[in-house]
């Protein structure tokens, strides 16, 4: 009963947590990106086109359910390549440029998908085949991906690449002086996130059954960033905690109707001021206090 009513919510939390996580990697290298939603949209369009377009009928025939992993791989490759194209010019520079370049990327992408025929213009694409009967079934898509990414993130903090990311976050000049190729590492952190967002998009198109330009609004970009920062950008659990709170909050606040979007803003501001390390940081400091 619980699972039936809240299946959609649970899957949405995991899906949004993964999108938040795609911003977690660049943040690990101290770079603020708002691109996730763009690559999510791109991945979704790839899956939607491959799932509905007559041009891919033969593929669907031949591959059957194996079509889905193929979509994920194509979305991964496309997002990573495009991520390189966006990331390299912006990440040669220090400071806020990645945030600005990624905003620009999402805006250009939105104009392009509205103009193209293959993306269905303003109407979007409908009737994307769904592999699962119930909403909860999509946990088979998102759940393992989340598990893999959590393990990957936890391992990453102990590798040379992860350590380099963190060194750049703490002090980019010092990291460079230590011989870390800062531009390369920043691009690497960014592209990991882009690829992940693309795969999440490709998984989400069947989940939502329809795909259009509204998937990549500026508000959605901000929401992804909010998951990480409110959950805690310095903990692997941050994006999951943040997404759980912020996706569930509107459900809990349903009686407030229109005013609940105001609440989202208030949560964002209050968290920035009082929880600079996010929920994960708060939990860690509570645990330290208990131990002491």
């Amino acid at each position, binding site marked *: 009963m619980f699972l039936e009513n809240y299946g959609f919510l649970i899957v949405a939390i995991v899906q949004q947590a993964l999108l938040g996580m795609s911003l977690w990697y660049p943040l690990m290298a101290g770079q603020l990106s708002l691109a996730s939603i763009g690559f999510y949209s791109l991945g979704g369009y790839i899956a939607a086109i491959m799932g509905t377009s007559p041009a891919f009928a033969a593929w669907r025939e031949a591959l059957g359910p194996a079509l889905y992993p193929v979509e994920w791989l194509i979305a991964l490759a496309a997002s990573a390549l495009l991520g390189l194209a966006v990331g390299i010019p912006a990440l*040669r520079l220090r400071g806020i440029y990645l945030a600005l370049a990624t*905003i*620009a*990327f999402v805006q250009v992408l939105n104009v392009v998908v509205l103009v193209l025929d293959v993306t269905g213009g303003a109407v979007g694409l409908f009737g994307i085949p769904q592999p699962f009967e119930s909403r909860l079934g999509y946990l088979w898509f998102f759940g393992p991906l989340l598990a893999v990414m959590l393990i990957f993130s936890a391992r990453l903090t102990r590798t040379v690449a992860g350590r380099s990311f963190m060194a750049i976050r703490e002090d980019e000049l010092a990291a460079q002086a230590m011989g870390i190729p800062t531009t390369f590492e920043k691009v690497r952190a960014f592209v990991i996130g882009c690829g992940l967002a693309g795969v999440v998009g490709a998984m989400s198109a069947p989940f939502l059954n329809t795909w259009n330009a509204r998937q990549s609004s500026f*508000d959605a970009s901000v929401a992804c960033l909010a998951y990480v920062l409110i959950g805690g950008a310095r903990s692997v659990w941050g994006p999951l905690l943040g997404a759980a709170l912020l996706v569930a909050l509107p459900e809990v606040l349903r009686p407030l109707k229109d005013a609940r979007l105001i609440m989202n803003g208030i949560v964002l*501001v209050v968290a*920035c001021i009082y929880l600079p390390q996010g929920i994960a940081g708060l939990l860690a400091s509570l645990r330290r206090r208990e131990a002491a």
Partner: protein
Amino acid sequence: MNIVFLLQSFINGLSIGSVYAIFALGYTLVFSILGIINFAHGAVFTIGAYCTYALAVGDFGLNGLLAGMSLPFRLPFPLALLGGSLLAGGIGVLVERLAFRPLRAKGADPLLALVSSLGVALILVNCLQFLVGAEIYAFPSGIFGSLPMAMVFKMDGKVLAVRTVQIIILVVSLAMLLALAWFMNRTRMGKALQATAENPETASLLGINVDRYILSTFFISGALGGLSGTLIGASFGLAGPYFGVSYGLKGLAVIVLGGLGSIPGAVLGGLVIGLGEAFLPPDYSSMKEAVAFVMLFVILLARPQGLLGRQTIQKV
């Protein structure tokens, strides 16, 4: 290509570009003093437009908390424009108090200030939606008194139309730019602002009350935002509480194009993007919204410090 098309595009581009310029100056002023981009600027732009609308027209629509209400007075457009801009300046001050000051007091990561300003933008826009609903408002046609809607010229058998609102936009924007240039370079307060932007610590040692000047910067920035919101609203209507978001993002492209923190750069960037949009061939008009952002990418590749920006040297 003919001379009439060129002239028409030039007038359209100059008019819209000058609004982009004064809007982007609001970002630039805050950036030059705090080194942070105020993401609530687009929301202030929207609120300014709605404030002017309320003062000049006075009737609210069918949705939201204020549905069916009307103000007991109507101001003529110039006074309403002034009032709306001042109110937007007040909102700018509110943004500083809510999103920036608490974080500055704690010496927090500048990234957090960016996010908290996004949060304040979310609060402002949704409060506005709560009050006036999501419907479209438009200034009535008689808003400029007895002025005609447009002037029509005939050249070589082709028609060149200049809307009155375009001329008003151009005149108000240019006046605002001149006033700002005078204020920044010729007044004590402007000089103090420049000193604070150059180095807040030194400025405070010289007896400049830095917090007060940051507050005045936000007031001026908010007023510029509100003014440009009104001008755009008078030209294209108020398409719901979210109509400032896309202009807010376009303003970011303007300041990067001109050079982050450069005042002449913001003006040049605004004009370049306005003219770029206007000169887009009619066949590609559906791509108009992408022009500013494509230019942003090109400048990042070719000249990252922007057209008029100073190349910064990193010191340890």
